[in-house]
């Protein structure tokens, strides 16, 4: 009888293993069923709202909206048609589907929805302020990380479909704020941060360099200033206000700025260096590029030119904005941006709440406070009037693109106001072909958000 028990033990073992597997399978299916459905062509999507309950995407098709009602967020919110992959709907389609394993697809009365942090009114105001000029603007609350505005031009009204996709302008289907662009002189903020981290405040402020209109480096390459007659002797504060290229080229070439230390600080800021694998910021599933550049030799033209914001340097507007948060907060810690404040399932139950999160410290508090003061001074001295009287810390930039045939205009900064802690990055493409300026966009942006 004992030996027969042994046979029964073997049978029990096989049965238990199978039952354990079945239990795991049922749990797995229950948990992932929504994901499986999203990989089929059977969807019954819910709604996407802005922070005030205004509709940004109508998956049920139940509302009536005026023409181009969604155009300002078209390439950010997206849809489920598969033409745009890096959008809020495409990356969160599972949360938006009116499906549950028990109920199946709920065709009527499903309450699945995503509530975003966006301000549709402000977004539309900024979109309209571009007057058709290409570019993008992104702004967020640098205390909480809520993205308030993110518009990219050209855009599309997703309700009109893709019948004429062949006629779409280049860049229509992407939110440019998420992709790397030549930062121009806004890059100098990173170089200032690097210099402060390496030398400290006193030493950097003691450094003065002469600008005669151009600087010939050790290799004989010339780096020209936008002010042909030169700025003369300047310190770092004057150089950043003048956005003086020769000053920054000499700063990079300074023996007190060794290459390995520059690389270290740049890496901490999030740059992919010298062709390394690019990294991404995850904004509720949306992949946002960070920054990349080439640093080979501090006497090399491309390295110096890259630290000034040209050459191989690329930074996404979102990344530029996030660095502003680390400065504006005076902590050296970036507030991580997010778009989804709340999502609800098919029954209307809250399944997810957006939370403020932070990066690790990317530079010291002392550096943050110093750069903040420098940018505020720059704002007060040069932008106090043009940006509607707001107390802003800013840095502008002009980026040569398409091999110098076009120039983009950029403006990064933050509003120094406890009630409206807003950091932003504004970009206008081909600035010579448009009457719109980054300062005008900034004014509209801040007016809309501080209304």
């Amino acid at each position, binding site marked *: 009888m004992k030996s*027969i028990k042994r*046979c029964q033990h073997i049978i029990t073992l096989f049965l238990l*293993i199978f039952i354990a597997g*079945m239990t795991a*399978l049922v749990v797995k*299916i229950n948990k992932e069923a929504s994901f499986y*459905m999203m*990989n089929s062509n059977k969807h019954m999507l819910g709604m996407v709202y802005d922070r005030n309950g205004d509709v940004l995407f109508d998956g049920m098709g139940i509302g009536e909206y005026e023409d181009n009602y969604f155009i300002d967020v078209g390439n950010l919110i997206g849809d489920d048609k598969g033409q745009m992959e890096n959008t809020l709907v495409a990356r969160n389609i599972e949360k938006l589907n009116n499906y549950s*394993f028990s109920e199946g697809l709920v065709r009527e009365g499903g309450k699945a929805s995503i509530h975003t942090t966006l301000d549709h009114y402000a977004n539309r105001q900024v979109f309209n302020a571009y007057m058709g000029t290409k570019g993008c603007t992104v702004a967020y609350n640098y205390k909480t990380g809520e993205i308030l505005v993110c518009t990219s031009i050209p855009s599309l009204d997703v309700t009109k479909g893709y019948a004429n996709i062949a006629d779409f302008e280049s860049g229509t289907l992407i939110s440019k704020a998420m992709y790397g662009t030549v930062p121009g002189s806004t890059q100098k903020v990173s170089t200032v941060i690097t210099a402060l981290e390496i030398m400290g405040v006193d030493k950097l402020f003691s450094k003065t360099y002469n600008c005669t209109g151009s600087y010939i480096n050790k290799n004989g390459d010339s780096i020209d200033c936008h002010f042909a007659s030169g700025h003369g002797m300047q310190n770092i504060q004057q150089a950043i206000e003048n956005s003086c290229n020769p000053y920054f080229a000499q700063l990079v070439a300074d023996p007190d700025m060794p290459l390995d230390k520059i690389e270290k600080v740049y890496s901490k800021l999030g740059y992919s260096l010298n062709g390394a694998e690019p990294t991404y910021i995850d904004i509720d599933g949306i992949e946002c590029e960070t920054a990349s550049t080439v640093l080979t030799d501090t006497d090399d033209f491309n390295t110096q030119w890259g630290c000034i914001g040209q050459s191989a340097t690329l930074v996404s507007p979102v990344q530029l904005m996030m660095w502003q948060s680390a400065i504006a907060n005076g902590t050296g810690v970036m507030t991580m941006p997010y778009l989804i404040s709340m999502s609800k399932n098919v029954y209307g139950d809250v399944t997810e709440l957006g939370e403020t999160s932070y990066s690790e410290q990317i530079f010291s508090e002392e550096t943050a406070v110093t750069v903040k003061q420098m940018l505020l001074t720059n704002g007060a001295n040069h932008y106090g009037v043009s940006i509607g009287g707001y107390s802003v810390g800013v840095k502008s930039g002009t980026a040569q693109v398409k091999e110098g045939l076009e120039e983009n205009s950029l403006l990064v900064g933050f509003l120094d106001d406890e009630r409206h802690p807003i950091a932003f990055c504004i970009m206008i493409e081909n600035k010579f072909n448009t009457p719109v300026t980054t300062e005008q966009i900034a004014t509209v942006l801040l007016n809309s958000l501080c209304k």
Partner: protein
Amino acid sequence: MIDNPFSFLFSCLFVLAAHGAMLFNVFYNGNYESTNQVILLAAAVLGLDIFYYIAMLFFKQRTFTVDFMLILILNMSVIFQSCFGGVHLSVKHFITCIAALISCRIGYNLTRDHRWICSKKPYIWSGIGILMIVILTLTGSRSMWIDLGFMTIQPSEFIKPLLVLACATSVTEQQDKHKVLCFNIVWENIILFGIFAVICLLQWWCRDLGSIPTFTAIYGAGVLLRICYPKAKFSKKTLAVAGIAVGILAVIAIKLAPEYVRDRLFVDIWNDTSGNGYQQSQALIAIADGGWFGKGPGKGFLCDVFAHESDIVFATISEEWGLLFAVMVTLMLLILVALPLINPPRSYYHGTMCAGVCAAFTIQMALNVFGSCNMIPFTGVTIPFISMGGSSMVTSGFMIGMIVASQSPVFKKPKPKKKKKPVPVQTQRGNQS
């Protein structure tokens, strides 16, 4: 004839009620063009039920539990298979179910007397050998199928019950040890290992790697019950060495596996939904679409996917009948092979046989269910009795016959030796008189 007629009648009614409820669901929720299709299906299912009840009355068995479970599961599978893609009686599957019932009777009759079947070991080994030769000579180029034109046969399926019988052992056999050098060897164990190794090599050659885990499970159960008999306990050292050896072999097998096998092992199905991940991704979508209670018989889309009736049948049932029902069916199959726990086998030989059958069934179910749901690599083996496939049906029926035999065995008493007529004792006194 029947020890407990009340229990027998109740069981008959229970099975009829279960099938009736399913047919009722087909009638109300099913996808069919004409009611005649449902009536034909109902007639086939209920007719087979009643016929089998009557047939059972002529069998002398201690218990009919396994038989009731078997007819319940078989006719459930007839209903499932007849509903895929629209209600219509699946005649082929119905016939293979009858073949499984007959095969079960054959398995029962051949194995109920453990002494007799034990004495036929050389024939069992020969049977395995003949099947291997058949595979090598009659199947196509490195294939596992024999195409007869009107039907195909998978000879490797028939090796499974034979391997179970080869692995089964009695107490006497394990005591038949021979001293070779300093080892006590049971020759049968050495032969068994050789058979197992050749089977694995043959399966490898046939590119039927999906069956190797089933053979390994049968052999593993057999070996465990051999090395632990008669008094030895489960030696941790032995088990550890065996485990390590299996692990090393598995790693080597993966390294040496053909590219298409490695692709299957490591495929990300959601990134390859039109290639190697097609069947699994469609299966999972179908399960999600079916939910707990299904879309209704014949209303699924998975019937358009290749091997929906065999390799991914769990998902097809889930889609049309619901995950709850599909899980229930697999649990019923588990109960079928778990019956030896409730009604213990009457001999050690039958016990080892039941363990082998249980190993084969659970591993095949696991490979099919978990493979089609992307929890383990997809192998394409069948769920016994549920999947379409004649060879699988017949061999599964035969193996269930072994479980029936273990519950109602025959112990033939050895024929008594002829007694010599007693020689009359002549007493001294008699002689004297």
